[in-house]
C-alpha cells in the first residue's frame, strides 16, 4: 500500500506492506537512523519517536495505524541544524555511554518537558521509566533532563 507520512515536517510517499512497523520505514525508507531497533516488542524504548506529539514505541506501531499524525524523530529536534535544548543538555551532561538507547531517551524527555516544563525528580523518573539503558547512564540522563528543564 502507499501511505503518506509526515516526518520531521516533510511529507513522504511510502509504498510498503501495511503491517510494516514505523521504525523500519524511518530507518530503511527514510534513512533516519536516530530511532533504534532494540526489542521489537515495545519493552525498551530505543525506538521512541513522537507521533502526534506523544512519545511512542515505533517498533510496534504499524504504519497503517498512524493516520495523519505528524512524526518527529531525534533528527527532527535540531533547530537550524543545532541541537535543541534537550539535546544540548544531554551533550553538556555527557549523557551517553554506548548511546544506543539515547535517541529514545532524548525523545522521551522531550515529551515530558513539552507537557511538564518543571518536573520534579520523581516525575522525571516515572516518566522515563519505559526506556531501558544497559550501560547505567541513568544518573547522567536524570541530570540532563533536569538541566534541560532549568535551561
Amino acid at each position, binding site marked *: 500500500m502507499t501511505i503518506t507520512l509526515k516526518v520531521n515536517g516533510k511529507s513522504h510517499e511510502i509504498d510498503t506492506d501495511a503491517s510494516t512497523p514505523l521504525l523500519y520505514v524511518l530507518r530503511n525508507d527514510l534513512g533516519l537512523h536516530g530511532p533504534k531497533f532494540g526489542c521489537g516488542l515495545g519493552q525498551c524504548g530505543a525506538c521512541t519517536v513522537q507521533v502526534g506529539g506523544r512519545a511512542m514505541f515505533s517498533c510496534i506501531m504499524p504504519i497503517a495505524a498512524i493516520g495523519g499524525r505528524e512524526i518527529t524523530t531525534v533528527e527532527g529536534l535540531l533547530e537550524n541544524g543545532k541541537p535543541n535544548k534537550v539535546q544540548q543538555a544531554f551533550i553538556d551532561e555527557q549523557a551517553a555511554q554506548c548511546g544506543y538507547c539515547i535517541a529514545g531517551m532524548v525523545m522521551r524527555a522531550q515529551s515530558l518537558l513539552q507537557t511538564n516544563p518543571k518536573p520534579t525528580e520523581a516525575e522525571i*523518573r516515572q516518566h522515563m521509566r519505559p526506556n531501558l539503558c544497559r550501560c547505567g547512564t541513568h544518573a547522567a540522563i536524570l541530570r540532563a533532563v533536569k538541566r534541560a528543564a532549568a535551561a
Partner: protein
Amino acid sequence: MNAPFSPSRRDILKGTSALVVAFSLAGSRLEAFAQNAPAAAAKPVTPDQVDTFLAIDEKGAVTVYAGKVDLGTGVRTAFAQMIADELDVPFEKVSVIEGDTALTPDQGPTYGSQSIQNGGVQIRQAAATAKAALLEEAAKRLNVAKEDLIVTNGAIGARSSNQTVTYGELIGGKQFMLKLDPAAPTKKAADYKLVGKPIPRLDVPGKITGAFTYMQDFRVPGMLHGRVVRPPALGAKLTNVDESSVKQIPGVKVVREGDFLAVVADNEWNAVRAARELKSSWSKSETLPDEKKLWEHVRNTKIVKDDVTSNIGDTKAAMAAEGRKLSATYDFAIHTHGSIGPSCAISEFKDGKLTCWSASQATHNLRKQLAKMFSMPLDDVRCIYIDGSGCYGRNGHEDAAADSALLAKITGKPVRVQWSRADEHGWDPKGPPTLIDLRANLDTAGQVTAWEADFFIPQGAAGMVELVAASLSNMPTDTALSPGGIVQDSAIGYKFPNIKTVCRRLETTPFRPSWIRTPGRMQNTFANECFLDEIAAALNVDPLELRIKYTDPADTRGLETLKRLEKLSKWERRPSPQKNVTGNVVKGRGVSYVKYELVRTYVGAVAEVEVDRTTGDIRVTKFYVVHDCGQIINPAGVEAQIEGNVIQTVSRTLKEEVTFDRSMITSLDWASYPILRFPEVPEIVIELIDQPAEKPWGAGEPTAAVVPSAISNAVFDATGARLRSVPFKRDKVKTALQSA
C-alpha cells in the same frame, strides 16, 4: 626529501596496502631503521613498530591505530588525550581508528579493564618513541641541541632562536620505520596538559543528534537482510522445512545448511516476517538441568582440575584448631549481557576474500575464527569494528558475524544479519552459574586464624567462544569452554595467617559460557566480601574496621581508600546488624572493598538500602564509591564508568537471572529478564583518588565487583538477614527474613 610515492592518509585508512617510502634522513637515528627496512612497505600492524600505532600527515594531523575499541566507555577520547598530550599536538588534531584487522594491531580483546592500562599505555609508548625521534631530527635540521627544543602544538622550536619545524614537515605522510622503544621516556606528571582533564567525548554529540553511525545503521550496497530461524531447543536437529509457508512474502529466500536455518530478503521487514512465519520441524532435545536443582547440578558436575589460587600457612591445621567455626555457601545466578541493541553484522565475500563488519570487541580473534570456519587463509579475512550497542563482554556480536558470513558465502551477496531480542537473550553466551563454599576459624582472642574457599566454576579461560552458526552448520569452530578469567579475585588480600582458596574447575556448565563485565571477580568478591561481613558480625566488630585491621599496613593506597570511604559515607563505627529496629521499611548500610585482582584498581563502596519487610523488596537508595585507578586520563570518563558499574550491578544483583526449562532459555525478553528502571536507580556519590605519577589502571569493571556484597551486607545491617544468593528477589529475601 622527495618521496617517489606518497600515499594520502585516506589510502592508508582504506587499507589498500599503500606503499610508503621510508623516512630516510641522512645521519639520523631514523635512517638506521630506514636502511634496514624494505624500501617500501604497507602499514604494519605488528606491535613492535611505531607505525603500527601512529601516522602523522603533512598537515600534522595524527592518526592513532588502536586494537582496543570504544564500547561506549570513552576510550577513543582517552586515547586521543593521551597521544595529543604525549606528542604535544592539539587534541583536535588526533583521530582514532579502532579494531580493523587490516590497519590496527592485535592488542587483545577489549575486555578486563585493560584498554587504557595496556592498550593506551602501549600507544603512548609509541608516541614517546616517535617524539624522541622527531626531536632528534629537528635538532639536526635546526642545528641546535636537543635540549634546546620545545614542542608546541606539533611544532618543534628552538629556545635559542626563533626557528621552528613542524611534525608535518618532518614526517608528514611517511612512515617512521622505527621500532617501538618500551623505555622511551614519557612525559612527567606535571607536564600533562590534557591527561587528567574531563575532555568531552568525541562521539557523544552525534549519538545525541542521531548522526552517529552504529553497526546497526551501517549498510553495504547490494546487501540482503538475513534472519536466522533458531532451533526451539538447544541441540535440536532440523527435520523439515516448509518453504511454501513463506512464498507469499516477496523476495524471500530460505537458506539451510545442516541445522542452520535462515531467510534472506532485500527488504528487512520481509526478512523479519519470513523468519517468523517459516514453518520448520525440529527434533526433541532436553539437555538442560532442572532449573530448580541448578545448584545441586553444579555441585555434582565432574571436577576436571583444581586451581589453587592461594595457599598461605596451613589451613587444614588452623581449621582443626580450637575456635569458632563459620561456614557459608554462596551462589550467583546465570546472567546475560543484555545489550540494548541486539547483535548485528554484515559480511561480504569478494574475489575469494571475506570482509566482515561487526561490533566485535575482538576483531583479531574473530578474524581467526572466521578463517577457521571457512577454512580460509587468515590473510583473506578482514574484520572491521563499527561501534555497536554496548556489549559488556563477549555477547552475540561474533555470532551475528558468523551468521552473516555464512549467509554471504551461500548467497554470494553481502548480507546483514540483525539479531532479534529473543536471539540476543536466548543465544548470546552466558555468565556461568557460580557456587562458592567458604569456611573460617575465629580464635577466642577474636582473631581470624583460617580462611578457606572453594569456587565451583567451569574450566577454561578467556579465549575463542564457539560460534553458533559454525556449530549448527557443522563447520569448524573452537569448542573449548571460554568463560573468561573467572579465577580472578578468588584469592583475597586480607592478611590472615592461613588462607587456602581453590577453584574447582567443572567439566561443563549448562550454557555456552563467556565473560560478562567483571567475570568471576564479581561473583567471587560477592562471596568473599559477604563472608568477611559474616565474620565481623560473629566477632561483634565494625565491618569496615575489620577490613582496615586485616589490610596489609604497607598497602597505603588501600588504607587510604578505606579511610576516605569512611569519611565520604559518614560511616558510623558499630557492629551489624543494627539494634532495636522497628517499622516495616528498615534501613541499613553495608561496606565492601576490593583491590582488583589483588594487583590493581582499589575500590571501596558503601551501599545504603531500604528493605520492605512485608514484601521483601530491596531499594538501594544511595551508593558511595571511593576509587583509585592510578593516573586518571579523563575523570569524567572514570566517573561515568563507575556510575555505570553501580547501576548495572544493582540491576544484576537485585533482579537478573536467566530462566530455562529442560530444552531452552525461557527468559527471552525484557519482561522475563527485567533490568533496573529509572525509579529504582540509586543516588551515587563518587570520590576519585588521582595518582598522576602512577600507572593508569582500568576502571571499566572494578567497581562492579563490590556492588553485590555491599548490598547484601547493607540488608544484613538493616534486618539481620543474610542474602547469599544473587539475585536478591522477593521470595529469597522473605525466606531470609523469616530465618533471621
